[in-house]
């Protein structure tokens, strides 16, 4: 299945901003994080199609998946 993965802030360093990835059916949000060599501890927010999701969430064909480190502002 195809999923668009987007990275933000320092997660982009040495990786990418946005990439369409071919993933096996049943891939979870957490597995994509692991495959990118991102430490789960550094992850602040995961969003699937503009809604928050968890490491355990199973991705679906056509999803847009965004991975953010711990950030803040205001």
């Amino acid at each position, binding site marked *: 299945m195809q999923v668009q993965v987007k990275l933000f802030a320092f997660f*982009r360093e040495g990786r990418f901003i946005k990439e369409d990835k071919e993933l096996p059916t049943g891939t979870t949000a957490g597995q994509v994080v692991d495959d990118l060599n991102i430490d789960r501890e550094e992850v602040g927010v995961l969003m699937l199609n503009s809604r928050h999701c968890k490491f355990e969430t199973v991705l679906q064909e056509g999803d847009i998946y965004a991975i953010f480190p711990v*950030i*803040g*502002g*205001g």
Partner: protein
Amino acid sequence: MADKIFRVNMTNLSTSIEDVPAEWAGHGGRGLTSTIVAAEVPPTCHPLGPNNKLIFAPGLLSGTVAANSGRLSAGAKSPLTGTIKESNSGGTSAQRLAKIGCKALIIEGQPENDSWYSLLLTPDGVTITTEEELIGKGNFAVVETVEKRFSDKIGVLSIGQSGEMQMTAANISVKDPDSHVRSLGRGGLGAVMGSKKIKFIALDAGGGKVEIADMDAFRAANKTFAKALVTHPVSQALATYGSNVLVNIINEAGGLPTKNFTTGQFEGHEQISGETMHDLIVERGGKPKHGCHTGCVIQCSQIYNDLKGNYLTSGFEYESIWAMGADCTIDNLDKIAEMDHIMDDIGIDSIETAVAFGVAMEGGILKFGDADEMIRIMKEDIAKGTALGRVIGNGAASVGRTYGVIRVPVVKNQAIPAYDPRAIKGIGITYATSTQGADHTMGYTIATEILGVGGSADPLSKEGQVELSRNLQIATAAIDSTGMCLFIAFAALDDGACLPALIDMINARYGVALTADDVTNLGMSILKTEHEFNLAAGFTNLDDRLPEFFELEPVAPHNAVWDFTGEEIDTFWDF
């Protein structure tokens, strides 16, 4: 040196130094400005008339070495909202005032002639001087000239042309350590200073120092506190990308108000994002991290240079960038930085003014995305006070009324900032119930709803949002009294050592024994004091509502509407 109240009467040009009344002694910052406004300003007075008072107060810890304690509060009845107002800012003035021994500066009355004045505060008192040279000048010229007249160590509070003309979006500028300016931004306090005919206030602390009751305990607590701040990952991201790191995440969440609040995502988000800003700053030899006051360990500010490597702006914040960017659909960060600089110079709130431009674009006065026309209007109309300049300079609601626009994003006349309340519902409760009109900083539910700091809450659900906003508004009122930057809250929400260390510092500074409950009670009592002032000024629960269009127009991508009932909103005050 013991803290005193410095009082200036602009009607008869007299000054006095008074002992601190016992009931004001435990207050600082916002708690003190709001307590004084509630005690001395008639709630029904005209905000620009002789009965309003302009109060400046450093926080309880300002002037000490406590990390991030350099916030200054200013308070009055707001000419924009008609409510009580407290606005706070970094810069060097809070520390200067505290070292002068000034717990609060109260400016009252109004000159009966057309003369302009300046004030000079030293530990010995206040001098009032007639001012001519700087009238009509912008803030950067004021700071430069005042430094030449006194020294580059001098603290400066000043107003630009918009404050002189008493526009209700006018702010008060605060000199920062690099002789640039920060802003007491919201609610039109620059117009109040203009109504008192004061162009600038110079602050000369001489060799003044604040007294610490127990220095050893103070130092130990500060060490713990500073460590909690610097090790929190949010602090580290703020130092790299500034608060503008939020553009992309709020856009991704579908809560980035775009094209005058007609949709929740902006096509040009990447071009105006914190990530892009960081790269441009580094490329052009600017500084990605920079502190707005000595002692800041978070360093969320930055120096943003133009293409030629010359200084363009600093303190380039997410909400300002959002307002000029997504809300006016401008995707050019250099144009946005140029506008930020112009607004700093003429002394006008970059949130209120840019949201007013968004409404003006909808009203057909200029086209969405036309940055050059925005810049022209700022320079030719707002700075010079033409009729159009005054309509925009009086804020978003003023533009909506004048040009017949219905979609006007304000609460109590104050522009709603950078987070759409239909897609991020908790912040809508803060906008509706804040004692000061729409203001994200009053109870920053975004931390929990979007950023996952201090727990989590579903931004599209109403559940738990009133309680979340209430708890944060109470905590914020207390933090705003300490002189602490609100960005300590991220560490405070996550690190159990942070808040106790903050309380230990207050106890060591004053030789008192406050507990966490005392601090919560302080926050509650400040909110109630402010709310009572507003009720006495004629506001009711029916003013605690969002504009109707939020209920009628679903916002993409979630197609969410604002669906809180009035009764649900009103439970906010059940404490």
